[in-house]
């Protein structure tokens, strides 16, 4: 549904995008994850036809985002990371206004307005002024606005940022609902945990390019490589040597009484490694897995040197 190939964008001397490449299949919920300044917003703005790339190409639903802006705008709903609302309008009028800008008027617009307010849980706020809404409500209203022309693709830039925990949960439920509606959704975030169980696919972006991308399961499998830490009372060198010989263990690092290693396998395998150390008479006082999963992988990737 979305294809991005080798996008580049410079701001002066800064390379905001440096060969950004990824693809999002139809119906996927794509988590676009990276630290602040990685280039997520820039990419989404290019996809939303608001910014022209310096190089590369991107298309949505077969339409080029530079050459076919109009067609692209018809099939996308975009929610920026920071946005404002017209504070002198009522919630209902706000949606009717945006319906009008998509060429929807009259009874159709009013029906759509009511349906969407129902969907985002603001039906009882129809006649309230927009600026009286809480931040979370405004965020949901903005999402309703993005849905007004029933787009197939949603581009959501940090939709949960700046929300309190309750509003965050509400937003997640809403995003899940959109996924069930069969829309292709791109959600950017700098917090992986927020997206891990929501997404079908993830792309991890660093310094203007995607460094890992794929279905969540594939990425998770990669994340099976977790870092473990062992502490022994004595003989850390011998522990290190023993670990080197165990299957699935990589990258052993000995620092005083502390031995760190990477391990690929299930928890049963890790238990076997521990048993092996103990059987050999090593006084193990600590054996732990570093807080792991996707988050771990994400941090690890984020710290990696960029390949030349």
């Amino acid at each position, binding site marked *: *549904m979305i294809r991005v190939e080798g996008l580049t964008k410079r701001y002066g001397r800064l390379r905001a995008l440096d060969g950004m490449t990824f693809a999002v299949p139809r119906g996927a919920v794509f988590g676009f994850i990276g630290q602040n300044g990685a280039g997520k917003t820039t990419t989404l*703005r290019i996809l*939303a*036809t*608001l910014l*022209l790339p310096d190089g590369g190409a991107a298309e949505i*639903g*077969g*339409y*080029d985002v*530079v*050459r*076919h*802006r*109009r*067609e692209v*705008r*018809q*099939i*996308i709903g*975009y929610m*920026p990371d*920071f*946005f*404002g*609302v*017209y504070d*002198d*309008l009522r919630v209902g*009028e706000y949606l*009717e*206004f*945006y*319906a*009008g*800008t*998509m*060429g929807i*008027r009259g009874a159709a617009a009013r029906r759509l307005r009511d349906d969407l307010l129902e969907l985002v849980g603001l039906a009882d706020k129809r006649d309230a002024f927009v600026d009286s809404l809480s931040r979370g409500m405004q965020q949901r209203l*903005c999402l309703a*606005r993005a849905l007004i022309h029933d787009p*197939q693709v949603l581009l959501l830039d940090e939709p949960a940022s700046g929300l309190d925990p309750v509003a965050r949960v509400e937003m997640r439920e809403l995003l899940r609902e959109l996924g069930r509606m069969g829309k292709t959704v791109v959600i950017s975030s700098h917090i992986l945990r927020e997206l891990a169980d929501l997404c079908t696919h993830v792309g991890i972006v660093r310094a203007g390019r995607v460094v890992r991308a794929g279905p969540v399961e594939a990425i998770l499998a990669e994340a099976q490589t977790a870092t473990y830490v062992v502490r022994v009372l004595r003989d850390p060198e011998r522990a290190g040597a023993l670990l080197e010989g165990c299957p699935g263990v990589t990258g052993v690092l000995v620092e005083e009484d502390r031995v760190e290693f990477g391990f690929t396998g299930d928890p049963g395998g890790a238990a076997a490694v521990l048993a092996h150390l103990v059987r050999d008479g090593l006084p193990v006082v600590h054996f732990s897995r570093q807080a792991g999963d996707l988050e771990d992988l994400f941090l690890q990737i984020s710290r990696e040197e960029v390949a030349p």
Partner: protein
Amino acid sequence: MRGLKVWWEDLLSGVRPMLAKELRARSRGVRPAALLTLYLLAVAGGISGVLWVVTRFFGALSVQVGLWLFTALVVGSTLLLAVITPALTTGAIAGERERKTLDLLLVTRASPLGIALGKLLSSVVYVLYLLLATIPAYALVYLFGGVPVSYVVTAVLLAATSAVAFAAVGLFFSALFRRTQVATLVSYLVVLFVLFGLPIVGEVQRSLAQERDPFGTRPQGGPLPWYLSASPLVALDSAFQGPEGEGLPLLGDLLRAMLGIGPMSGGAVTVQAVPGGMPATTVYTYGPVSVISGFSGSRGSGVLPLRQTYVTLTPGGELRVVTALAPWVQHLLISLGTAGVAVAGAAWRLGGSGNLRAWLRRRPRVPAGP
């Protein structure tokens, strides 16, 4: 053909909702009522002041007072509108940018031109509303008489078109600059320049031309430089010249002092008949030379002429007749032209340039649909 239809639909997708929203937002709260009240108070104050001054110091009633009142109304409402209008549009686009709502607007079907036009129209509607509110005041003029209906119509038309031009200029700067404050500042500088600076430029240019041509080798006189008509004050004055070529009281004298136009004491030549069957007209001067006002009879003659006849003095001492569009017609054209260019510029800045580039880059083949 299909492209044109799409273009039109996208234009309407911008104009219609924007107009509705802006008018709705503008009619909310106390601001609009307060502005209207202030405006009418200023107009009423102006009228009372003029009446007081005229009756107190001139003691004249009837026709003269009617004209004085008319002048005060026309000039007053033109100046008031010039002050109010840019304020209505300088926040139009810069404000959307500041409030971070512009991107939400640009990803819709609404074309940049539609958005800009919607913004302009909403303030034009508001300006017309203010202008209509002053029309009852013109009834007072009739109490004293001496001013034909065509004057009032022309005056309102001039005030409206210059307000539209100023609104469009405000809109353009609103699109050009990121901040409303900057847009407001620049717009007011431009408005001030057009109102008061242009006549000065005209005068400077005139004296420079005279200096460069001390022996009078080029034909002298003729119409005022066309760009001077951009100033509504110049246009107003020239539109309402009387049979002796005199302009509006006070304003006319002021402009004449600045531009050196109009009858100079003892310098005016009355031409009885001009070749080409023009009726008897009055010659009045532009600098040392003559301008013929193209309509005859009294101020009560009704319809204002679209073209005006001038007499120029060639170095050989011959009088030559030149006709040109009347300055008030020039003003209408300049104002509407400026408004058009300014709106197009705003649309360009809003994203029209990207749209055009996209359109040019577009491959001829039909894209593979979803």
